[in-house]
């Protein structure tokens, strides 16, 4: 059976000269299959929304309805969670959502590389979100940002313990944000490859004849399994993009309000 992890191998397509950053070291720059997958995803998003806004009509056609649907979906999310300041963060949340959605969905096409199955990609996105939260929080509230970790109405004796717990879970946010998306994409694609491998290996049993002919219905069952898993993976792709976006919104809301509803 073929190795299910082989699909995640990074292959260089164009090798660029190495970059030396003092203090960090030598960075091996290259255009890899992961980079190309991200370019394709960004291109698809830009193309889609370019087409949506090309001929805007008051009574929208189907494509415009789809584009406006995604737009208002994230707009409602941002304004319902963050409030009247939600519009300021809407471009960032919208970009993150559509980019992650495009990367997830494009990875399901045959022979395409899933960029979000690389921990580097999801960790970068999570670190960007976390940095935005920190910058916005400290810019607006200064050191009052630490009030986020002390929920109101707490007996004084519990404050030190709860502060440490809350601080730790806050620092864990970029970790879980990246690992959630990474794990879902990695696990889904590994499961798909494993079931697909069953089709071949069970079908090959049938060449032996006799009891091996049982391999053919088993291979058909595996094929059904791959179909069902692909449907599940479509759902998971959309759901994980949505969860990434909504968690980004909630974390930005924490930075904007810093513990007390402003």
């Amino acid at each position, binding site marked *: 059976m073929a190795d299910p992890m082989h699909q995640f191998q990074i292959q260089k397509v164009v090798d660029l000269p190495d970059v030396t950053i003092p203090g960090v070291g030598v960075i091996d720059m290259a255009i890899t299959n992961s980079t190309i997958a991200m370019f394709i995803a960004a291109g698809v998003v830009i193309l889609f929304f370019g087409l949506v806004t090309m001929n805007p009509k008051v009574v929208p056609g189907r494509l415009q309805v789809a584009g406006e649907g995604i737009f208002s979906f994230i707009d409602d999310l941002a304004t319902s969670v963050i409030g009247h300041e939600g519009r300021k963060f809407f471009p960032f949340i919208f970009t993150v959502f559509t980019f992650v959605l495009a990367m997830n969905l494009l990875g399901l096409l045959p022979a395409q590389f899933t960029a979000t199955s690389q921990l580097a990609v999801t960790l970068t996105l999570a670190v960007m979100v976390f940095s935005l939260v920190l910058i916005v929080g400290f810019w607006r509230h200064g050191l009052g940002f630490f009030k986020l970790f002390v929920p109101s109405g707490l007996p004084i004796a519990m404050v030190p313990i709860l502060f440490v717990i809350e601080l730790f879970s806050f620092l864990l946010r970029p970790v879980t944000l990246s690992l*959630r998306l990474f794990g879902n994409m*990695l696990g889904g694609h590994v499961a798909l490859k494993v079931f697909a491998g069953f089709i071949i290996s069970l079908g090959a049993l049938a060449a032996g004849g006799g009891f091996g002919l049982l391999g053919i219905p088993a291979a058909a069952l595996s094929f059904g399994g791959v179909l069902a898993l692909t449907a599940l993976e479509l759902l998971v792709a959309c759901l994980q993009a*949505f969860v990434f976006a*909504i968690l980004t919104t909630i974390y930005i809301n924490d930075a904007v309000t810093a513990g007390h509803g402003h």
Partner: protein
Amino acid sequence: MDAEAAKLIGAGLATMGMIGAGIGVGTIFGNFLSGALRNPSAAGGQFTNLMLGTALVEALGILAFVLSLVILFG
């Protein structure tokens, strides 16, 4: 015991972390359904929270699965 056998046993044990995730997701959906059957008109409004809670719980189970893959293939 050689390393290959230990890897296989470790990978199998690591996936037992998904037991908790299964119980968690079942609890969330069960509570949602029992609430939705009492107040069907308010159920749709909570769908977003349902999906969010499910994803948060499922993330920990997926982490267990990824860890088992890391043990097996890393």
